[in-house]
């Protein structure tokens, strides 16, 4: 085929125009592209979403900045806050009622298996927007995944740490304990010399004693379940409970009131200068241990991973609070837009660094946990928690876990407060739990 000069010039010109158009469109799109994968063109403008969340600084920070989201998308969001203690009841009422409102629901990860048919699986939406769970630690990834499907994105999550009175350890030349035995020895010295011990807690209220015992159990090589069978009355589990009970009844290294304390009381005790140690969720550091109503300064308080029971490595327990889209909502696409925005790492970083507005310490994204600015604003807490989260585990993903946990909490409390034999208490609890598991 012969190509004339005119044809060649025409072809080149056509090509140049076409290329220009494509480039122009791409540039225009780039200029219109919104951050965090939000859809451009405000396709859901005018939509009003409702969002149920517990009372916590984290969510208050989201609410304070939600105008940015509304400006970007035209979607309005109304936050409905409820005390955490009442959150599960509220969600169950929504489930029973088949309510379409609220469109988004924040929940605790171990409630997920029992609630999952209230939530929209978001795997496809995440895939379409190239969002993955890789940005979170494994424990937090597991916390939103049930039966291989993803049901939410974690917005709040906790690692467990041991908080200790740095000034008192230095004063008496004591090391930071790395094992439970070392902790007992160090706490004994502090208690003898200063009159304050470990801000431990054994109350079955809120079942937080289970988390402490589970840390000892895992570190002792024990497990809760195996192939659908309850095995938390194994020799390892009994040994873990005996040790946990001995801290209070035999070694007497705890502060006063531990039998009736829940985790909240333990951190309050440390913040009031009545305890030298506290083991629990890291959020207590920001408000209970160093809050404006406490007597301590950051220089007095150190933090470290939880002690190991055997060996030198502890396996701690982590939890998260994901936000999911209500399966009955008629605004699921708009809700997904909000979920993309509210879970973005930049927003999280703002939340944990703007200390003049509110003292939020909870971060979840790996990059924020290792971020220098974030750590500088929080005395390096995130970096310490990152170490804990690397090897953390979560509660078993069972629909009846909340009740199994309560049965365990009662057994632990019975052993420490009412003199029940640890083996017999765990045997009875295991029998009761197995019935619950079998019933499903």
């Amino acid at each position, binding site marked *: 085929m012969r190509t004339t000069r005119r044809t060649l010039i025409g072809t080149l010109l056509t090509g140049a125009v076409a290329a220009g158009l494509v480039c122009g469109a791409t540039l225009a799109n780039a200029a219109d592209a919104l951050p965090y994968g939000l859809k451009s063109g405000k396709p859901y403008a005018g939509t009003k979403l409702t969002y149920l969340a517990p009372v916590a600084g984290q969510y208050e920070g989201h609410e304070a900045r939600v105008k940015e989201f509304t400006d970007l998308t035209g979607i309005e969001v109304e936050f409905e806050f409820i005390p955490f203690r009442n959150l599960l009841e509220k969600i169950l009422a929504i489930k029973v009622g088949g309510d379409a409102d609220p469109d988004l629901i924040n929940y605790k990860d171990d409630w997920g298996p029992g609630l999952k048919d209230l939530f929209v699986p978001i795997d496809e939406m995440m895939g379409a927007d190239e969002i993955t769970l890789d940005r979170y630690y494994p424990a937090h990834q597991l916390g939103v995944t049930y039966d291989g499907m993803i049901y939410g994105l974690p917005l709040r999550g906790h690692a467990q740490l041991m908080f200790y009175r740095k000034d008192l350890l230095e004063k008496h030349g004591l090391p930071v304990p790395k094992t439970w035995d070392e902790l007992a020895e160090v706490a004994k010295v502090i208690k003898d010399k200063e009159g304050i011990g470990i801000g431990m807690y054994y*109350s079955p*209220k809120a079942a937080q004693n289970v988390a402490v015992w589970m840390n000892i159990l895992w570190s002792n090589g024990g497990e809760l379940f195996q192939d659908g069978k309850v095995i938390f009355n194994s020799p390892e589990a009994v040994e873990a409970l005996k040790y946990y009970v001995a801290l209070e009844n035999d070694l007497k290294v705890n502060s006063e009131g531990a039998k009736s304390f829940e985790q909240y009381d333990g951190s309050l005790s440390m913040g*009031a200068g009545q305890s030298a140690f506290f083991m629990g969720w890291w959020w207590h550091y920001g408000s209970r241990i160093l809050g404006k109503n406490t007597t301590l300064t950051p220089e007095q308080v150190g933090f470290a991973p939880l002690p190991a029971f055997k060996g030198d490595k502890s396996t701690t327990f982590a939890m998260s609070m994901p936000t999911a889209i209500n399966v009955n909502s008629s605004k699921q696409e708009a809700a997904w837009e909000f979920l993309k925005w509210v879970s973005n790492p930049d927003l999280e970083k703002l939340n944990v660094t703007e200390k003049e507005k509110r003292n939020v310490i909870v971060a979840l994204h790996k990059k924020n946990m290792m971020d220098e600015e974030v750590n500088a604003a929080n005395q390096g807490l995130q970096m310490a928690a990152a170490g804990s989260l690397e090897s953390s585990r979560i509660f078993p993903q069972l*629909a009846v876990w909340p009740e199994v946990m309560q049965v365990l909490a*009662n057994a632990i*409390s019975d052993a420490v*407060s009412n003199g029940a034999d640890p083996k017999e208490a765990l045997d009875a609890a295991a029998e009761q739990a197995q019935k619950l598991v079998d019933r499903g």
Partner: protein
Amino acid sequence: MRDRHLKYLLMMPALLLVTATVIYPLGYAGIISFMDWRLSRSRVPTDFVFLDNFWRAFADDPSFLNSLGVTITFVAGSAGGAVVFGLLIALLLARRGRGYSIARTVLVLPFAMSPALQGTSFRFFLNPEFGIFDAVLDTLFPFLAHVDWLGSAGWAMTWLILTDMWHWGPFLSLMLIGGLLSIPSDTLEAARVDGASAWTSFWTVVLPQLMPVLAIAFVLKTIFSFKMFDYVYLLTGGGPGESTSTMTYYAFRMGFSAYDMGYASAIAFVLALLLVGVSAVYFRLLFPKGEAGR
């Protein structure tokens, strides 16, 4: 309109309200108690299981039987304690005068306070590190200095009862003051003329005449004690162990922690039947046959 029809028409709004807020929920709970409704599986009741939930409660659930025992202990302690406490206050304040009137008005305050607020407050008051009750008790009774008030079965139940008595005692005293002031003064005068001591007058004159009011106060308090939830939830969480886990608290756990609404309804229904039975016995004692309509 004839009077016969008018009376039903006038009663209609109240009947509709009671049907919507009491009879329907109670009936629905009754139906659910015979059904399998596990919220983790379905948002609506599924199968009719006849008496399975009730059988499970009595034959296969030690925690339920424990809650039954705990409830009876609490009812006996709190109903008896609150009535006696109320009677003591009433005997002190059943006099006429401005000061007594003010004191009686103040008595309404504990009853007017929200039980949730009281439960939370008492938990703080009893805190061994900074609780005011703990500090006062430690000062008055040094041998109790290291007691963890909510940390043992006996003390936790004692404080649960005392908290409830603090709430109810003053209110019951107002009922009893009314009863005391309505006792004809000539009966007391006659006893005094006969040389009866204050103690004898109380036992032989005052108490028999006060008995109907006392019985009503006791029935009322017993019914409310059976329904105790707030203080257990806020003060002890049912612990230590399950030593203060009442039936209402256990039903709540089964519904909102085990997601088993059918079983929770069965427990609640057992409690309702128990209340009906207790009320019937009390009223039988209160109004022997032939006196019911007096």
